[in-house]
């Protein structure tokens, strides 16, 4: 009863990094509960994927062969049946976009309490999950009173499991009711192409909601011009249509790895951080001393960007536009 079942994730034939993080998170928890770590691979080339995720720490891998790609109606049925078979204490799924699409349904179907987006798990007679609220400004702990629970795991919080595991790989024969499949994935589309590839840039000046209005964009463009930087942004800037999608840094945007990344008026929400944490040097310009971006920044200015940016433009001999 004290086992852990962790669901892995793949896309277009490739295991996603979060799967290896699930192995670490699952191992951690299974060590605390004193049980085994079971992994599940659902859909796709399950044998190849199971080999790939068979890292140190995994005790058993269950494969469900059905369809090529993710379909939440298939996942929901397969995982509920596998859960009944394995009978674990805790079910773990990634807090990825697909995890958000099936984990709540599985938890509801199995009548399990659900805690999402965990950044830490502790077990001592009961499960305590640590998570963030208010865009990362506070942390909370959630105690689970029931023995069993489902938890989704924040991507990139746990290390990726390494080494080669010796888990037994077993095919699980899920009985998928096709009449219950009411959504059909018809394809994929790449977005955010275009002339500029921010993932190639060495120096990014990146702006967020702190710039307030589209009318303030010329100020940033003047800085970009004076420093010969490349302009990128957080999501709200793209959502507002102020910059095209190919400039968005983050989970749903691009991953960038510049030498220097200046985050101007960006709070550092987890989905943004997913795209820029690999920058060599991170500089923050932000008025809020509690913004999570300060956890990552190497250098910073805690001040109003509308004071700092004009001064910076002048430092480089540029012209400050009238706003």
């Amino acid at each position: 009863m004290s086992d852990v079942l962790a669901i892995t994730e793949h896309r277009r034939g490739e295991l996603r990094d979060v799967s290896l993080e699930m192995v670490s998170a699952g191992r951690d928890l299974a060590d605390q509960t004193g049980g085994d770590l079971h992994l599940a691979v659902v859909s796709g080339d399950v044998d190849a994927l199971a080999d790939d995720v068979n890292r140190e720490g995994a005790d058993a891998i269950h494969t469900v062969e059905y369809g090529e790609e993710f379909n939440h109606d298939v996942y929901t049925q397969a995982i509920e049946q596998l859960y009944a078979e394995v009978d674990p204490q805790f079910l773990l799924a990634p807090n990825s976009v697909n995890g958000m699409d099936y984990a709540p349904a599985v938890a509801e179907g199995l009548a399990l309490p659900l805690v999402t987006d965990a950044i830490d798990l502790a077990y001592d007679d009961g499960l305590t999950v640590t998570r963030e609220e208010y865009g990362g400004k506070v942390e909370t702990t959630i105690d689970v009173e029931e023995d069993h629970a489902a938890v989704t795991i924040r991507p990139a919080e746990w290390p990726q499991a390494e080494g080669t595991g010796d888990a037994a790989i077993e095919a699980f024969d899920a009985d998928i009711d096709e009449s219950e499949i009411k959504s059909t994935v018809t394809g994929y589309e790449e977005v955010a192409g275009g002339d500029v590839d921010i993932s190639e840039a060495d120096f990014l000046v990146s702006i967020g909601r702190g710039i307030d209005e589209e009318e303030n964009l010329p100020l940033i463009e003047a800085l970009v011009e004076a420093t010969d930087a490349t302009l990128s942004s957080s999501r709200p800037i793209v959502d507002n249509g102020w910059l095209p999608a190919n400039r968005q840094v983050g989970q749903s945007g691009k991953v960038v790895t510049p030498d220097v990344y200046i985050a101007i008026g960006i709070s550092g929400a987890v989905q943004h951080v997913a795209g820029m944490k690999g920058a060599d040097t991170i500089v923050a310009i932000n008025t809020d001393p509690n913004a999570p971006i300060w956890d990552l920044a190497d250098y910073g200015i805690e001040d109003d960007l509308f004071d700092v940016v004009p001064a910076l433009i002048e430092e480089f001999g540029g012209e400050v536009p009238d706003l």
Partner: protein
Amino acid sequence: MKILVTVKEVAEVEDEFEISGGDIAEQYLEYDLNEWDDYAVEEAVQISEDVDDVEVVTATIGPERAEETIRMALAKGADRAIRVWDDDLEADSYLDVDSKAELLAAVVEEEAPDLVLTGVQAGDEANGATGVTLAEKIGFEWAAVVNQLDLDVEGGVANVHRELEGGVEELTEVESPAVLTIQSGINEPRYASLRGIRQAQSKPLDVKTLGDVGLDASVLESSLNQTDLYEPESEGDATVWSGDAEETAGELAAFLRDKGVVEA
């Protein structure tokens, strides 16, 4: 056709704040319409403008204060609103996803909408799970993180794009009735016009108790307890330049030249 949109009033925390009694002290909070719900309202209103005979109803779990936010959604074009609240809810210290979804399911039962739109997540608690939990409870199909929606009303199908990670979108056909969780950027939420704000004052806003929607306080029972809330210890060791803007900009400029990323 009827579209139900769940609308949450979320708290935003001021730059400087204090925690008291296991929560952020009230004076440091400002309330607003949840960012993702704003897009969901807009999507519903746009559908009502494109398709004949569409009624847009909003559903909120929240205290009287939330009516300001609800009126904002009405001003943007929703037709009427439902707000669920009573003393039991007021006294509840932690409303978990399951209880919220159960409450909303009771509203869905009464309203029998053809489509339910929710935000992907709420900006404060960020559980990102209420919409899909609700779908499973009411036996609707669903799709999470939708950033494009093309509704085939006759065919009973919602053609959606789901925004996956890394600039990839999934194209999916979802049978309706469905719950769709709406991602920011799917549309351009309108500002409430003065005329809209005036009209919103006379639109129906029904306040219901748990009993009114056929539930009792047992729906609030939860096996999840929020046991602590605190400011995370900063992991950062940033060098923060101090001084006025000229000085700090000077430091940053020198740093960038030193690094060799700027030549000027």
